[in-house]
């Protein structure tokens, strides 16, 4: 059953080799709806409006209101209804407009989706996909900009995906739907307009492993999601200084790809973890702790972290930029691990 979904999600129409992250998300949704009649999309304004970020534009016309369902502003009820529909044999894709709004559904995600399988002694699997926008960079201030995916990565029972490339945006949804357990997909709002290449069949794209986005020998920059472009930018700047940085995209925050983290540390012996979440109690803290546990003797320098400033995200452009992990800070941290001080 799961294999057939994955197989069926290969493209039925030729897709352009280069597209935007937004178009890739839409192509993934369309392919999923075409492939399996159990799949449906629901959320706030996913239908007639076309999606708050225009991701689902056109899908209502193609698939109708039964399978592209506009919901009231009732995050807890429609996420919970997604859980119930999954228990009832469907394969729901629930869209929550932003991660900040997902807190209104946290009861359903934490107390139901993540726990039902265990609490029922293995009876109640919940094959549900929840997509939501995360992250800052668009001057949306303190109730639309946070990066809380690290919180969700704390919870056993769910899988947390953070597609950072156009290719991942296109191809991670299929295996997420084939997964018998709840999968949360975080789409960084700053990425929707990014362009990139889409592979023709998604071969090699899974929902388990991290990916090396740029190889390097001197320092590893470990990141995910919206900060990947900034890390790649930092790597270019570091190369100008003669420092070859390896950029690792975690892709999956739960379960973390420990082998990939160990491997990059073994290659470079120096690490900078970059996370748009706040530093305290963050996924960056988790990665750093695992490096200490698993790769302590490989390290030639203390692990550095570059995270968001510990403030609710401010509105003003210059303040927001100052709060976010950006290339200059990443470069400086990498330099410290390589040259000290």
């Amino acid at each position, binding site marked *: 059953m799961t294999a057939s979904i994955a197989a069926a999600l290969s493209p039925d129409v030729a897709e352009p080799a280069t597209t935007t992250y937004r178009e890739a998300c839409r192509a993934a949704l369309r392919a999923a709806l075409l492939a399996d009649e159990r799949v449906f999309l629901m959320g706030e304004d996913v239908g007639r409006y076309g999606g708050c970020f225009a991701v689902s534009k056109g899908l209502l016309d193609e698939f109708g209101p039964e399978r592209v369902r506009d919901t009231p502003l*009732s995050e807890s009820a429609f996420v919970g209804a997604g859980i119930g529909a999954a228990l009832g044999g469907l394969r729901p894709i629930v869209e929550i407009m932003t991660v900040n709004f997902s807190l209104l559904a946290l009861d359903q995600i934490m107390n139901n989706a993540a726990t039902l399988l265990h609490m029922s002694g293995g009876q109640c699997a919940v094959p549900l996909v929840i997509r939501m926008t995360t992250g800052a960079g668009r001057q949306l201030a303190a109730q639309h900009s946070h990066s809380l995916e690290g919180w969700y990565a704390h919870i056993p029972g769910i899988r947390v995906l953070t597609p950072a490339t156009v290719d991942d945006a296109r191809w991670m949804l299929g295996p997420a739907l084939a997964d018998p357990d709840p999968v949360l997909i975080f789409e960084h709002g700053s990425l929707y307009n990014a362009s990139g290449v889409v592979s023709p069949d998604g071969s090699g794209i899974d929902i388990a492993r991290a990916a090396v986005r740029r190889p390097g020998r001197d320092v590893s920059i470990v990141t995910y999601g919206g900060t990947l472009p900034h890390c790649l930018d930092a790597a270019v700047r570091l190369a100008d200084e003669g420092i070859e940085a390896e950029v690792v995209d975690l892709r999956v925050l739960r379960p973390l790809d420990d082998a990939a983290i160990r491997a990059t540390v073994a290659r470079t012996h120096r690490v900078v973890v970059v996370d748009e979440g706040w530093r305290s109690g963050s996924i960056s803290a988790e990665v750093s702790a695992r490096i200490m546990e698993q790769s302590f003797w490989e390290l030639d320098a203390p692990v550095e972290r570059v995270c968001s400033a510990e403030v609710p995200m401010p509105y003003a452009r210059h303040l927001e930029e100052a709060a976010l992990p950006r290339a200059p800070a990443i470069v400086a941290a990498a330099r410290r691990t390589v040259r000290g001080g």
Partner: protein
Amino acid sequence: MTTGLGIDAVHGEHLLREMLRIRRFEERCVELYSETKIRGFMHLYIGEEAVAVGAMQALTADDAVVATYREHGHALARGLPAAEIMAEMFGKAEGSSRGRGGSMHIFDVGRRFYGGNAIVGGALPLAVGLALADALAGRPRVTACFFGEGAVAEGEFHESLNLAALWNLPVLFCCENNLYAMGTRLERAESEVDLTLKAAAYEMPAWPVDGMDVLAVERAAGAAASSVRAGAGPHFLELRTYRFRAHSMYDPELYRTKAEVEEWKERDPIGGFVARLGAERLVDDARVAAIEAEIAAELDAAIAFAEAGTEEPVEDLERFVYSEGVR
């Protein structure tokens, strides 16, 4: 042959037996709790048996049941073996949830019994989703969702009733109004205490029902379930009842008087039903004694099953966090 009660002897005996099974099961649970065989939170349904038993008569095996943490009665009335429920409360691998859930989390997906949910109001959205799956598949099923009147104060109650009504979904909302949300009496929590008005505000049929009268519950649930099944959308029953025991085993009951409890006990759903059956000559004392003996034997066997049950190996601690055999 039916009687003035509108039921025959076989059915009358069935209803009585089901209510008695719940009461005697829970009385045994209290003893076992004192013996520390059962631990954790345990919430007793004693006094409310007519609600689960009456409502369950309206459901078929294909229908779904979603219940709360006070669900021993619903599980028994739904047909879960007493032995598996008891083993679950003993924390044994043979329990209905393999000892992972306990008293508050009884599940049996084969019987479409979806818990055993212990966040007040948190299971209403699940019921809406189960009904949505049935509606999209064109299956003429009902999802019966039980919850206490305390849930009415939760946002999830309102979101769920609205969504079910908006999408015309086949949910039978069964609100068990036992007047107290733990220790908070309805009047201290709600500006409007007629709960049917809240449901009616979402444009669904909503009826108050005497929850101490199993026949009244059966009639109301039967009519509501038929209507739901026929495509008339969600219905709401406010089942007015009372719990005779404390909220849980840790509750000193400082919030209500003994006189009030005694007053409600005069409306005992079991005692009253036995009297009505007797008056109609549908059962006699000997028959009731025989039923009691059969239930006692069933419960003896259930407890023996739980005692003899095995413990899940600690090596299996992290099982059932993710599905097995798929990756």
